[in-house]
């Protein structure tokens, strides 16, 4: 733990350890940089794009986490739990199905700690994310998940990861972000308290997307325990979407963490708006938000109609950098002027 500011006041000689301070953003290692109440990710207020004067809207910038997404929280919590049970070693690593962000967080954390990591991912994941996983030190296994739609077939990547964990249990353990309660706990212990503190308990609405559902379930549990009136508004992309990491309700059966009772409102948003809105957020607010954030922003915009009042927090899961190819696909005009 970093020393408190008072420790510095009473100290006359500064050693590198003693200058460690999250207030000053000096960390002794990357694990210390992981978020929590004492080291929250920033909230940034939406100004130009806020259509409702009576509603204060913030974006929580989860790309400010060490490995660039909200998934750092769940990954750290899941690894902590596995370590507590002595399930990880230099020869027994992690296997996890992932669309990218959880894999990247797990791979980076595992690498630094000396654990092997195999990421099993659907082919549709952008090349950039696949390369990032390789750069972080993970082995990849890419699965074609879209051969021919079948109810109950499940995700090929989930089943392949389960295969490794079951058949090669001396080499791999599968955190399974879709079922692991630590994914929920991470948000009960960090994201929820951060928001509560950062808004001085004034938060009235949170806007989240649905993927593994660890975020929505953990946040809802914590915030409603502080104030049962807090409204949890979840957005889902329309069917046929190409927003990485998100799931439409029809795709949610793989997540055992989804609890419909905790969600006050579920909005289905045309997935194309995810891309349109996030570009707007970048240009008008300077927020380099990724497509899932664009979808969440649309949810907030819709919920703020008709003169709503309160303080809303949108969870912006990651930034735009990993998805530039997807933007070029949605907006071919972006490619204009990119060649000499």
């Amino acid at each position, binding site marked *: 733990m970093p020393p408190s500011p008072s420790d510095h006041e009473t100290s006359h000689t500064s050693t590198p350890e003693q200058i460690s301070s999250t207030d000053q953003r000096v960390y002794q290692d990357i694990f210390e940089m992981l978020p929590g109440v004492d080291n929250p990710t920033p909230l940034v207020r939406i100004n130009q794009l806020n259509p409702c004067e009576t509603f204060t809207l913030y974006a929580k910038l989860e790309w400010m986490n060490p490995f660039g997404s909200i998934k750092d929280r769940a990954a750290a919590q899941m690894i902590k739990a596995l370590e507590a049970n002595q399930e990880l070693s230099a020869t027994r690593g992690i296997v996890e199905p992932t669309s990218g962000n959880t894999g990247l967080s797990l791979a980076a954390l595992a690498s630094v700690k000396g654990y092997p990591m195999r990421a099993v991912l659907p*082919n*549709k994941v952008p090349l950039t994310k696949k390369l990032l996983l390789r750069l972080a030190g993970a082995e990849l*296994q890419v*699965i*074609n998940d*879209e*051969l*021919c*739609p*079948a*109810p*109950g*077939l*499940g995700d*090929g990547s989930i*089943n*392949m990861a*389960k*295969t*490794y964990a*079951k*058949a*090669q249990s001396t080499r791999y353990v599968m955190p399974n972000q879709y079922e692991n309660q630590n994914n929920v706990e991470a948000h009960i212990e960090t994201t929820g308290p951060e928001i509560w503190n950062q808004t001085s308990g004034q938060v009235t609405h949170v806007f989240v997307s649905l993927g593994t559902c660890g975020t929505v379930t953990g946040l809802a549990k914590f915030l409603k325990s502080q104030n049962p009136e807090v409204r949890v508004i979840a957005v889902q992309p329309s069917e046929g979407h190409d927003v990485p990491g998100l799931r439409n309700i029809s795709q949610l059966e793989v997540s055992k963490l989804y609890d419909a009772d905790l969600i006050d409102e579920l909005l289905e948003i045309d997935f194309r708006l995810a891309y349109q809105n996030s570009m707007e957020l970048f240009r008008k607010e300077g927020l380099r938000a990724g497509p899932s954030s664009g979808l969440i922003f649309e949810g907030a915009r819709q919920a703020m109609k008709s003169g709503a009042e309160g303080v809303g927090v949108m969870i912006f899961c990651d930034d735009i950098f990993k998805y530039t190819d997807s933007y070029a696909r949605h907006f071919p005009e972006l490619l204009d002027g990119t060649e000499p």
Partner: protein
Amino acid sequence: MADYADPNVLVTTDWALENLETEGVRFVEIDVDNNAFDAGHIPGSVGINWATELNDPVNRDIVSREQLESLLSRHGIQNDDTLILYGDNNNWFAAFGFWILKLYGHEHVKLMNGGRVKWLNEDDKPLTTDQKTFPTAHYSAQEMDTTERALVLEVMQLSANRTANLVDVRSPDEFTGKVIAPPGMTETAQRGGHIPGAANVPWSTAVNQDGTFKSLDELKQIYLETAGVDPSKPTVAYCRIGERSSHTWFVLKYLIGLANVKNYDGSWTEYGNLIGAPIEKPTATTASV
């Protein structure tokens, strides 16, 4: 399972678990994803690669009698063994293997109901990476019986005369020609659409969430009542390369009990490329992509 026309062609995962060591029972995994077997498989099973071991790439045909004999002998499979086939994607290629084994006269062959995904998701079912080896056998296949194999000229004739039920088991997007093949597939065709007169019943409508086959009543409802398959006529199932249609062939022949069912394994990669073969494509007026 007991209600099916021939319940003996299926075993449950529980039966499989109890018979892993049974003499004369052999487990064979055949997957779409040929990496799956190496990642983990049922103890004692052998893996067959559909692309290189069930097809003859030189002749663009299913495996020859001699090739099949060599394959099964190499795996120590005897003629009187009971073969339990299973695989990923709810037994797509396991059903393809079943169909080929039947063409070559293997008597005792069954599918494990639910396939690989059901086994994987049941806590009491083990997986291993150990590769068990068996003494080489001397498997002797019969001449190929083509009664249940449709070839393209026959299919064109049946389509033109409307004298058979043509069941296109691909996804609706493939059937309508919106896509030529599922994403990521290398085997495609010049044109998207379907064989004139075909009804679209995606293979997956025959399976439950856990990967097992639906009940007989449900299957009859799907194929006979909703899709209008006439049991008094011959039926031909097709897809893109013949594996998904093997799955539906299995359903129609063994579970519902239709008398005359064929698998057209040339399927869309053959028909869709054929010069002079008319297609139907609801989204366009001309027969083009």
